[in-house]
């Protein structure tokens, strides 16, 4: 066994009554990539924050290079060669790359020499690891992939030998994620130790040497990546067997519920994002729209659900038109049986400062069953919310809790419960499982299938190709604002991938 870079012995940490880390023992081998997987709230991030000196453990010991150390602040961690790339980047948005990199590591009171030194050091790092980035670019003008690269450079500039990455691919496109993995492999070859925190099992299989699984604050298993499977890891994470691929019967498409013709939509900058798109969704089927993020999917569903005004085209809901180019009103559409689970639940789907019960009726709050004269009928709203909590297994089961205090997966369930329980004829779902952990994904998928089986029309937009393929009865691929092809769910990933990349040759060859 290789030498241990870091050893965690008996780490405990509680926040109030929540025991976030319970007797954690973990060995991180030098020059390896360790994956830590677990559902949201399993304690992964807390553990790493303890290692980075952001929190202090209540008890336990940390050894770096075999020697017991005390890490009280991030400074101590940095001095021990530990660097961290946070899930939400710790960058100053209106600073340049170089200013962000030297922040906190300036060496002297005047900036001139520090910047000059950093420039040459950065040059060296860029060459050594293939991490090119313009040192004078302003952070907010860089794509997220590059911002993440700046975070990595920040850690390396501080002499990090051990690099912790917290959910690094959550914000990346598949291509950016692949690039990140190439960088991580290269770092490993140079002898760096890497800890990858994630809940995406495919990433674990693709890049790690060892994987530790956390559940409810404890490490439940550690495996060599080559000796385990996705199924085993999923089971360890959730504590029960998980169906990664949903089981579903044949679809029974009925009459057309939603009909989109020649729809053209511009985004807020005036760029045409949806170009002359037409399709139908029938009752009893799930139509999936695949595509790399930013190819018009978001604008498409916003236009159909009445949030964004379309330039031209028409949409029929149950045969009667929606005024998509004029004043389509999302509230009125809801009354007509069109429900919408928005892509961005934080900004569009929920009011995070509200209680769960309030969010569970948001948009439907003017329905008679929630009203007592001109006032809200709190009793019936709470009864209703409790029923949804029970049915959708929303945790913690507390309808008075502020929505911000629920995990991402449970917030998503709150939105889904709200929209599905109104029994709409058409459901438009954007990114239903973004940031949602394995156990909840399975549940959400089952619910969507159940909607389909009860004869509803479901329009699904997702950037997760796996999700599209396992749920959809028909797949439309969007590229550059157009639907470039329709495939059955049996189409191979490669074929869909080519379409998503805008390669239309296959289409022509057929």
């Amino acid at each position, binding site marked *: 066994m290789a030498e241990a870079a870091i050893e965690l012995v008996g780490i405990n940490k509680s*926040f109030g009554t929540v025991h976030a880390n319970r007797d954690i023992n973990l060995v991180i081998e030098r020059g390896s990539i360790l994956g830590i997987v677990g559902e949201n709230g399993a304690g992964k991030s807390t553990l790493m924050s303890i290692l*980075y000196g*952001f929190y202090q453990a209540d008890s336990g010991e940390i050894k770096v290079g075999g020697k017991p150390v005390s890490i009280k*602040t*991030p*400074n101590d961690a*940095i001095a021990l060669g530990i660097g*961290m790339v*946070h899930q*939400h980047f*710790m*960058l*100053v*948005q*209106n*600073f340049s790359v170089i*200013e*962000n990199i*030297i*922040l*906190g*590591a*300036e060496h*002297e*009171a*005047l*900036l*001139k020499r*520090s910047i000059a030194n950093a420039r040459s050091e950065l040059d060296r790092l860029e060459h050594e690891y293939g991490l090119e980035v313009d040192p004078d670019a302003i952070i907010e003008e860089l794509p997220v992939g590059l911002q993440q690269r700046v975070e990595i450079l*920040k850690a390396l500039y501080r002499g990090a030998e051990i690099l912790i990455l917290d959910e690094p691919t959550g914000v990346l496109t598949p291509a950016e994620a692949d690039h990140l993995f190439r960088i991580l492999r290269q770092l490993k070859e140079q002898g760096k130790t890497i800890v990858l925190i994630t809940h995406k099992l495919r990433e674990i299989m693709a890049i790690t040497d060892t994987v530790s699984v956390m559940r409810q604050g404890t490490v439940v298993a550690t495996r060599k990546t080559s000796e385990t499977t996705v199924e085993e890891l999923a089971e360890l994470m959730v504590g029960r067997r998980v169906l990664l691929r949903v089981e579903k019967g044949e679809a029974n498409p009925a009459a057309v519920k939603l009909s989109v013709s020649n729809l053209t939509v511009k985004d807020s900058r005036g760029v045409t994002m949806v170009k002359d798109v037409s399709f139908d969704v029938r009752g009893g089927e799930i139509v999936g729209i695949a595509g790399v993020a930013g190819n018009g999917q978001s604008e498409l569903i916003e236009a159909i659900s009445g949030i964004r005004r379309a330039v031209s085209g028409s949409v029929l809901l149950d045969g009667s038109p929606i005024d998509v180019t004029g004043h389509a009103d999302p509230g009125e559409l809801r009354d007509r049986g069109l429900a919408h689970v928005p892509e961005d639940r934080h900004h569009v789907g929920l009011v995070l400062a509200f209680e769960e019960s309030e969010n569970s009726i948001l948009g439907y709050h003017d329905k008679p069953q929630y009203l007592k004269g001109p006032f809200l009928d709190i009793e019936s709203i709470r009864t209703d919310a409790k029923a949804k909590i029970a049915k959708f297994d929303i945790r913690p089961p507390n309808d008075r809790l502020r929505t911000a205090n629920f995990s991402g997966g449970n917030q998503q369930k709150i939105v889904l419960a709200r929209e599905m329980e109104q029994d709409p004829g058409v459901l438009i779902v954007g990114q239903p499982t973004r940031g949602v952990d394995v156990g909840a994904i399975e549940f959400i998928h089952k619910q969507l299938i159940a909607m389909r089986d009860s004869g509803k029309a479901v329009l699904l937009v997702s950037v997760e190709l796996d999700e599209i393929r396992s749920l959809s009865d028909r797949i439309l691929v969007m590229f550059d604002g157009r639907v470039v092809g329709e495939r059955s769910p049996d189409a191979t990933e490669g074929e869909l991938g080519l379409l998503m990349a805008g390669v239309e040759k296959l289409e022509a060859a057929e």
Partner: protein
Amino acid sequence: MEFVDTLINILNSTIRVSVPLLLACLAGLYSERAGIFDIGLEGKMLAGAFAGAAAAAVYGSAWIGLGMAVLVSVALALVHGFASITHRGNQIVSGVAINFIAAGSTIILGQAWFNQGGRTPSLPPEGRFGSNTLPFAEELRGVPVIGQIYSGLLSGHSLLAYAAFLAVPFTWWVLFRTRFGLRLRAVGENPAAVDTAGISVTWLRYRAVICTGILTGLAGSYMSLSQNAGFVKDMSAGRGFIALAALIFAKWRPVPAMFACLLFGFLDAMAIRYQGIALPMIGKIPVQFMQALPYVLTVILLAGFIGKAIPPRAGGVPYVKER
């Protein structure tokens, strides 16, 4: 020639009335760039003015007055810091409280100590910062334009006035050329980034409010030890708020802050000079109209002409470590 004289006269008083605005504006800049909104500039100026005048009256020394003004003003800044940094209180509430405390306590203490209706005794020359004549000012007075500008406009101000204008390039240098400045700007934008870089957010923000205290102390001293010969109740007369308007107007940058203060000072100087003078067609312009102009101008210009003023992103938000 009379026109040039008049113009120089107006510009000269522009500079005089701009000085306390400028000092207060730069004071606000340090604090707000670090993410601590400070609506209590007014109160700190007023308390500084009173403390300066009181100490100068008792000890007969302008320098002791200045020292006292800075001390009291820094103390109030630390109160604001304690409320909003350590206890993560609401920064607006804390700032307003400081304004009230200063407005009330200066009058009560002034009456108790000096018995002159809340005023401090009139200061002797050695208790004030008088005007300083620049070298060769008298000799050059006769030279047209350049000489007039030099001796009529640039010469003859108090030490604090020169300090105020020198503080502009100095602040720029501190902000953009030093480690302290880099960290200060960073903590106002994203304190979490500063924290994870191993720098104390608390200590950094305290240092910023101390800078604010020092500068508001200077602003107060200028009012009671230089512009006037003693303290009069409510003598800051809303300058702390105009300074905030100038700060927004300048988008939190030092050099534009100077020009904004000069512009507001110019309006003030015009208002003083031309108050009560009837203009043809329009008639007499009420003095209140001129006094309101800086605010009106800020709103109009910010609404359409100079684009959006984006405050430091973490401004007004107490820093709490994320769980």
